[in-house]
């Protein structure tokens, strides 16, 4: 075997493992490394995983049920007008798939997500279930102090549940582990930006998503292997337009949809799983760790349709993504019934109308199973872009 096929084999093996994790149930507590005493579920978008990690609870991102889950209970409990990720998350709770969680934390990203806390309170009172009230005003003085208080509250709750005290050193240790992971994720996205033919959006997504089912330190090892192999890939660059993909910040687009986009475009940046990449630089490893996490949420953070921040208009950050990744165009998606996503889609499209940047609007649902029409739209879009670039 030459080294190039060896790299390909490594990458395939890692990606296959990631895909298995994507489809796997939440980890069973018995199967976790010794330092973990339980799992803590959290809903998108951002959650300070370091605090759970330090408490010995494996943070498990609950990302809905994908397109293989049949809704048997949730239909009667959540209206048909609610987005799929909320309905399928409720289903996973009601069908017992999340019984092993020590707790489930949701956020004030939208009203449907806040209602999940009520559903948990009514149906699973034995689990720690709550809304972590991350602020929608990060611009007023006092925001960091408030977030620190909220994180401190969470720390106390998790200490109670896990039976393990979380001292500052433990937190700093967790921050170091996550900083390392964040650096690797930034490298992953840099590779896609610089040499997109070496790593597709689907592959990068699978690699990132694996962190939702494994300890962060193990995920970093996995990322390092995958990155090394991908960098050495000798695939030829392809004649595809460079696009950014937005709208995947919460409900997850089906993998088949990402594959359809990859077949036609190089996705040079995206907002998929943005919560796992929310902190955009290292969290300072010295000083009060809770304060540093809180300050990072405000000062070193990404953007999404569900976070208001005067410094980052929604059109502004889209344009920055397009500019920084030297994209030719944008794919603007929104999950069906996702009010914030649908509002943003209109705003983005109207804004791009005033520029010479082309875009394609797609609506998706995690439970979609048919992609032919979407593939055709993407093909036409990509062709028209290549034609425009050539002309």
């Amino acid at each position: 075997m030459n080294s190039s096929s060896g790299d390909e084999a490594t990458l395939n093996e890692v990606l296959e493992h990631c895909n298995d994790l994507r489809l796997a149930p939440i980890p069973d507590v018995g199967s976790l490394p010794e330092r973990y005493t339980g799992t803590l579920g959290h809903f998108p978008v951002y959650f300070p995983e370091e605090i759970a990690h330090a408490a010995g609870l494996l943070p498990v991102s609950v990302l809905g049920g994908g397109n293989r889950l049949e809704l048997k209970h949730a239909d009667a409990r959540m209206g048909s007008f609610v987005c799929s990720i909320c309905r399928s998350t409720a289903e996973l709770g009601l069908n017992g798939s999340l019984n092993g969680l020590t707790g489930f934390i949701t956020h004030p990203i939208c009203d449907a997500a806040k209602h999940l806390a009520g559903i948990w309170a009514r149906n699973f009172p034995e689990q720690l279930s709550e809304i972590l009230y991350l602020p929608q005003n990060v611009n007023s003085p006092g925001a960091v102090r408030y977030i620190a208080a909220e994180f401190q509250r969470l720390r106390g709750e998790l200490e109670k549940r896990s039976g393990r005290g979380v001292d500052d050193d433990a937190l700093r240790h967790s921050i170091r582990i996550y900083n390392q992971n964040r650096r690797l994720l930034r490298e992953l996205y840099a590779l896609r930006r610089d040499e997109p033919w070496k790593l597709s959006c689907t592959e990068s997504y699978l690699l990132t998503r694996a962190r939702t089912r494994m300890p962060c330190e193990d995920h970093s090892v996995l990322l390092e292997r995958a990155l090394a192999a991908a960098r050495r890939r000798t695939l030829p660059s392809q004649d595809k337009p460079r696009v950014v993909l937005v709208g995947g910040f919460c409900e997850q687009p089906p993998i088949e949809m990402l594959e359809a986009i990859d077949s036609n475009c190089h996705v040079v940046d995206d907002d998929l799983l943005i919560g796992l990449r929310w902190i955009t630089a290292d969290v300072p490893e010295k000083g009060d760790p809770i304060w540093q996490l809180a300050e990072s949420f405000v000062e070193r953070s990404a953007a999404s349709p569900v976070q208001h921040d005067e410094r980052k208009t929604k059109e502004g950050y889209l344009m920055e993504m397009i500019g920084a990744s030297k994209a030719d165009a944008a794919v603007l998606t929104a999950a069906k019934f996702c009010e914030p996503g649908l509002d943003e889609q209109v705003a983005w499209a109207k804004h791009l109308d005033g520029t010479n940047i082309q875009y394609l609007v797609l609506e998706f649902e995690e439970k979609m199973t048919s992609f032919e029409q979407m593939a055709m739209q993407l093909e036409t879009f990509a062709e028209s872009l290549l034609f425009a670039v050539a002309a």
Partner: protein
Amino acid sequence: MTGKAVGAAANIADTAAAFDGRIEGQRLMRDWYKALEEAPARGQHVANVFVMGNAVEILRAFDFQLVFPEINSLQTGVRKTSEEYLRLSEDYGMSPDVCSYVKADVGLILKEHEHPAGRIPRAHIAIASNMCSTFIKWAEIWERLLKTPTFVLDLPGQRAGNWRVRPGDAQHAADARWVEAQFQDLIHRCEAITGKRFDLDRLAEVEDRVNKMVAHWNNVMALNRVCPAPYNAMLDGLTYIGIMNVYRGTPEGVAFMRNLEAQLKTKVARGEGRVAEERYRLLFSGTPCYVSMRRLVELFETWGGVFAYSDYLTFAAGGMDAGDLAYDTSRPLESLAEVTALAAQRGLSNQFFAHERLAQQIRDYAVDGIVFHGIKSCRFVSSGMADTRDYLNKRLKMPSLYIESDLIDPRYWSDAQIKNRVDAFFETLRQSGGAPPAGKSVPPATGRAA
């Protein structure tokens, strides 16, 4: 009692009897729209605010003319013109699946602010709380389309089931401190916009009026615990909360609420109910369907069913009835933050744990059944409704009805279907023993001095 005192009491009773909350409410709403139209000519600064978590007290202290975009949107429904606004915004690109209030407002912007009640002035600032997340998305639309400076007021809400925050405890103190920091920031921004210095005495004055309004309002709510209920929470009640919002902290608002309480007390003393023979006391959970509200209420009242309470009267009136929430006017800003934080948890964001409040209201208002009104476009109210209903059915064996339409989109109103469901609900209530006719015993209203 002296002859003089008897005469005075008779006068009060006469005034109370002459007061008609609905007519007076409509007059005040007309005046408000007129004031809106004339604000630019007066050179008055204008602020857009929502009904849940809005810092009205601060804005009033700066003499802002207040615009309530939700009320503008619902008024397009009441005036049967909403469809035009909704279609305009959908043609513009808004999804059919988003809040219809937002869409009606985008329609209003596209119609250059021409509203059936008059021209709506453009705001110099918009305050959007996080109580309904849609408020923030809505305000971002103004930022984009109208360049309106926006202030997001972040109110830490109820975090979990059985969340008990008591005034002054550590959690409340931390939350209130954050709210106060934002108020300070807002005050600086208002000073920059208006060129006026903030006046704490003015704030205290406004707060004193709000205290009076809230005290009367609490008594008004409590009066409907009496059987027969003197008013319908989902018809008369809608006018009352309109005034609670639009005239919050004003002398007109205080007078309205005082007169309303007196009038309803007179009704109760005479044993007069909203319906001729009250047979079923009901609780309405959800938002109204403003295009067809009269019709909906009629479907219930023909069966002798009256909405004694609605959670809408709590969250859509700012959540101030949900506990002993009164401002301490000797420390107006701190107290504003403390009460705002408490109201956010006890009266607004507890919507996400609606079963707790509803279980309490079922007892307080001695209701025979709950009517849930699901609204596709309002996830704040509707996302957890089916689960809440299931919970209350199982735990409290509370008969309930679920109907669906929209706040203001007439395309979602299906008269025959809703009538069938309402009739079937009452048939079931009747067959299961029915409710006793008027006269059943419910806890007496506890009057409090305003």
